[in-house]
């Protein structure tokens, strides 16, 4: 670890001193979306597989962590368990759907999202249906993370740890195998890459990340409601990585800031919420056509302009 890391880390961990209340809540939410962005970017950005059903893993993670902590399981166990719940579901669903390619995979994951939403909605005794359920604030030994300021530290540690893991995955064997699959499945096979196995690995890891994010979300808001975990949420996840930048960790962060902060900033604008899906759709189209590398590539392009 090099010494210059200390400065950004110091600034990061001092954030709750400068931002309080609602602002730190929004920052916490950004962190949670970063976790989803990292996971989904692995699947879509690196491995080239589209998913429009990640809200299912998010929901599963949220309810898993909620129930485990209510049942007295320590938060430190419940959070990874939320990820594991997403991963197990992805594995089971992946066995049939990962045989499908491109748009067919995307469509079947839409189905996954809708089915999960409807099942959870109708399991009223378990999820509270449309009424939702309350979730306890996390405890670590004597520490209770009741305020959004204190919760920030949990989010920050999770984001840093999961970014570290993803950074290592993407720069080594598995990460290269994912990229190879995205570029050419035939050539990947000829290079000795077990394509079905690595597709599954990408799907499971991305679901794990999304499940962990769901767990964090449940404890941040202290209240979860199935109706929030709909198809629009999956679309938001996908637009986040396309807007931020596919196959890029900074891209995941930029995308998360965008999809959290912009709707929050427009919260009081009448009608903004109603056209959210439309706006995301148009933005995805815009970025895919004009800036396929997302905001991240926009910055590097700007740098290029100023160098000349």
């Amino acid at each position: 670890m090099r010494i210059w890391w200390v400065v950004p880390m110091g600034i990061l961990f001092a954030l709750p001193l400068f931002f309080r209340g609602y602002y730190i809540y929004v920052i916490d939410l950004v962190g949670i979306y970063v976790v989803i962005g990292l996971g989904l970017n692995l699947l879509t950005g690196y491995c080239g597989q589209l998913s429009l059903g990640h809200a299912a893993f998010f929901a599963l993670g949220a309810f898993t962590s909620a129930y485990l902590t209510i049942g007295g399981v320590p938060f430190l166990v419940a959070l990874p368990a939320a990820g594991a719940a997403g991963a197990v579901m992805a594995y089971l669903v992946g066995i049939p759907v990962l045989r499908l390619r491109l748009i067919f995979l995307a469509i079947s994951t839409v189905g996954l999202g809708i089915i999960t939403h409807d099942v959870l909605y109708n399991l009223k005794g378990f999820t509270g249906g449309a009424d939702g359920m309350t979730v306890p604030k996390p405890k670590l030994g004597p520490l209770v993370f009741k305020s959004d300021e204190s919760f920030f530290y949990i989010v920050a540690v999770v984001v840093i740890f999961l970014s570290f893991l993803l950074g290592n995955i993407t720069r080594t064997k598995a990460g290269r195998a994912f990229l190879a699959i995205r570029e050419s499945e035939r050539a990947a096979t000829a290079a000795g890459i077990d394509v079905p196995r690595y597709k599954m690995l990408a799907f499971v890891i991305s679901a794990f990340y999304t499940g962990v994010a769901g767990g964090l979300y449940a404890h941040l808001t202290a209240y979860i409601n199935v109706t929030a975990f709909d198809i629009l949420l999956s679309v938001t996840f996908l637009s986040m990585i396309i807007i931020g930048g596919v196959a890029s960790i900074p891209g995941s962060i930029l995308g998360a800031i965008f999809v959290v902060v912009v709707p929050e900033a427009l919260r009081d604008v009448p009608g903004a919420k109603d056209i959210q899906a439309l706006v995301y759709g148009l933005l995805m189209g815009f970025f895919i056509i004009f800036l396929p590398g997302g905001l991240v590539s926009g910055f590097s392009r700007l740098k290029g302009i100023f160098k000349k």
Partner: protein
Amino acid sequence: MSEVLFQINHLTKKFGGLIAINDFSMEIREGEILGLIGPNGAGKTTVFNCISHFYKPDAGEILMGGNNLLQLKPHQVAEMGIGRTFQNIELFGNLTVRENLLIGQHRLIRSGFFSTTLFLKRCREEEKRVLERAEEIGVRLGLGGIMDSLISGLPLGTRKLVELARALVLEPKLVLLDEPVAGMNPMESETLARVITEIRGRLGITVFLIEHDMGLVMRICDRLYVLHYGKKIAEGIPAEVRRKALVIAAYLGQEGDLAPQG
């Protein structure tokens, strides 16, 4: 005479009513440069694609090192030590030359998922080795100056070299080259001919190639098989095959590749 490295026995592949490969048998001996020739549509690439598991043959077996390749999973063909290139070039286009050569070494990397995720010492050392090997093979094929260039910006001749390099980094015993000099200018194909003989000479890798450039084939191949409408019509050393081809052409009418040249 050296040992048999690779063998195809009675291979048949049908596409609906069309018999693309008809009861084809062949063998490759260790250290050979073996050519598979024949007119367009003769079934040459189909043979390669059966070896790579892109097509499932209707009958026959493909043997290497005592294993029937057809009973393995597709990616295990590379693990057996077979590298290949493609007729229409299948590179990882949005990645750099270096990244392509790193991916090519996939089968050689032993660090497990746990060790790579935490980037442990063992994994770091292995990554270093893999990078060095990519550099070494890249330089050997004259790609040293463009290791960080994106594939999508490279001219065809260079891409073919990158593809060959990617097949070589996996430390194959046998490489399958599907029309290695197609689309190259005479100078480039001269370079490639030299590279191919070097692959065999210095690296000790056996070469199995499909090629339409008869001049090249006659010059560098030790033995040839001739396919025509999926059937083997001739085999032997180049001079012998050429003589037979002339006889066959006289009976069947002249067919592009088999026609006498020069």
